């Protein structure tokens, strides 16, 4: 343990794509069990930021500490952190050649070295938890978008992560399926999971988030409670953004 100030600690984190400065000094801390919603305009670096947490993207300056482990190039650290952090993508990224059940039980079997029967049993429980036990033997292509995303959530949960990241989990879904996914996420939040959710679902943010972070141009513009964020934002930039997305 480097310290016990928080489960996720960002200190002045920078990242460049070539000359393009995507993350321009991000600093924030998250406590265990907190639910943080990140929003902001397209291209502002939200995805990049949360993907640095499990090293799908590397940061080039600053410090990221996840559950007491600092992210460096050390492969063992990266693997340790990836076991603690689950991520759900906008495009689901399920493994198309495996059934829903296999998608979920794969990592516990190969990475945690669980017995196959045990891994499948656990996977089945998770599919029940996300409400689709009857789809266990189907392949991703045979599932609806909402069902696929719920399998993806179950897959991430199968590694019993301490932190769950969601990168616009409902943006690729038809309106009628958004609710079923958000419901699963709400239950997860209530169960005490530490979550970072990038989303434009302001209703969800208002209801579930402990804090909302507003991103623009790779910077953390505003960090506020939902109450304050919606009714009394500190920044003009936030006001403009809110007026744009709440119009519809």
């Amino acid at each position, binding site marked *: 343990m480097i310290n016990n100030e928080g489960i996720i600690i960002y200190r002045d984190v920078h990242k460049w794509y070539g000359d393009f400065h995507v993350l321009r000094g991000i600093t924030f801390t998250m406590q265990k069990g907190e639910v943080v919603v990140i929003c902001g305009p397209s291209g502002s670096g939200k995805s990049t930021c949360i993907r640095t947490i*499990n090293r*799908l993207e590397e940061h080039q300056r600053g410090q990221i500490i996840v559950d007491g482990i600092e992210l460096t190039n050390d492969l063992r650290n990266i*693997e340790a952190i*990836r*076991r603690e*952090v*689950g*991520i759900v*993508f906008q*495009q689901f*990224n*399920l*493994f*198309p*050649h*495996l*059934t829903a059940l296999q998608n979920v039980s*794969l*990592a516990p079997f*190969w*990475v945690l070295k669980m017995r196959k029967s045990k891994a499948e049993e656990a996977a089945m429980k998770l599919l029940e938890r996300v409400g689709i036990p009857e789809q266990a033997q189907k*392949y*991703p*292509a045979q599932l609806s978008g909402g069902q696929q995303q719920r399998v*993806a959530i179950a*897959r*991430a949960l*199968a*590694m019993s992560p301490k932190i769950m990241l969601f990168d616009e989990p409902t943006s690729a879904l038809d309106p009628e399926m958004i609710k079923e996914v958000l419901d699963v996420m709400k239950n997860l939040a209530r169960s005490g999971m530490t979550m970072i959710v990038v989303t434009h679902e302001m209703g969800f943010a208002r209801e579930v988030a402990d804090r909302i972070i507003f991103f623009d141009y790779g910077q953390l513009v505003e960090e506020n409670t939902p109450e304050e964020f919606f009714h009394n934002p500190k920044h003009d930039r936030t006001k403009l953004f809110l007026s744009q997305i709440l119009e519809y």
Partner: protein
Amino acid sequence: MDENQLAGYADKNQLPPPSERIPAIRWLKQNLFSSWFNAILTIVSTVLIMTIVFGLLRWALEARWEVIPANLKLLLVGTYPVEHLWRVWATVYLIAFLLGFSSGAHGGLMRRVSTTAALVSVVLAVLPFPWGTRGWLLGIAVAAVAGFGLGYLGKGIRWCKRLEIASWILSFPISLIFLNGVGGILPVIKGRTMWGFMLNLIGAVVGIGLSFPVGVLLALGRRSKLPAIRLVCTAYIEIIRGVPLISLLFMASIMLQLLLPASVRPDLLIRAMLTITAFSAAYMAENVRGGLQAIPQGQYEAAYAVGLNRALTTILIILPQALRIVIPAIVGQFIALFMDTTLFGFIAILELLNITRSIMGNLEWRGTIFELYAFIGIVFWILCYSMSYVSRRIEKTLGVGER
């Protein structure tokens, strides 16, 4: 609206699709006689096709087909000694048994293949072969059925599945050793390079079995993050793909003869098989690379994110998807490799084509060149078509999980 009303609404107003059948005359007019020019083309090509077909038929009826049965043993197994022929049969039985076993255990495609093999052997046994040969042929069906029974009984048992996979993998080296012989136990057959069509088959099986894994490794190497590995693999692939196979075969046969003393030089047949493997692997690598490139980045990310390391990601997530995409290309490569084994004939290996040439040189069979080449053509066509049929079936079976 309740459920029933909804269902009624879904059924209502549903019409059958419009019929697309057209009368024969209309079809003819539309497709063959739509204009003067097309009409003339149709008539000319009909006459041409008729001439060729009748010519072929007349030739086929008058041809001296007896050259095939008279030399069948020579064509199929070359100079493999008659008193050891049972080893060839035993090998065939082993494969038939395994096919039957797999078909009993899994059904599906395997069942089709093994049923076909068994049926073909029964049909062949009806043909006017000597009685001894008929008995051997029927043995194939017996082996397949026996395998089927055992496979059926062992269905779903864990160790049976492992045994099956292990037997398939082991069957190839065992067959080779069995056919060739091992010092002290089974007499080694002399003149390894004179076994007719069997050599084409052995060359193809060895070539396919080795070039596939080597090709996959080369493809992965070419995409490696380590520059040295990438460089070596790329150079290998590009050099091999720039040289004709025949020149590689000549190098393997003649240059090695000059460079290496006989004591350390592998047997000509082994050199030929290694050459064709090395050659095919380069093409295989490019096919596999095509499949690897088609896998979206998100698959890697999802795999890493659940904690899989690079090796496991490649083996469990990437390769299964990449290989599925390139099955047609890979089977095409297998077929090409099989046909390329006829090039062995140019380096003094008596495979099917070369054996045929020596038969044609025999005074008794002078002028039977067309019959013999027709036979070669048919034999190769049957095997190559089977391969492409199996590949299409595999694609279909695997298509379940496609995006």
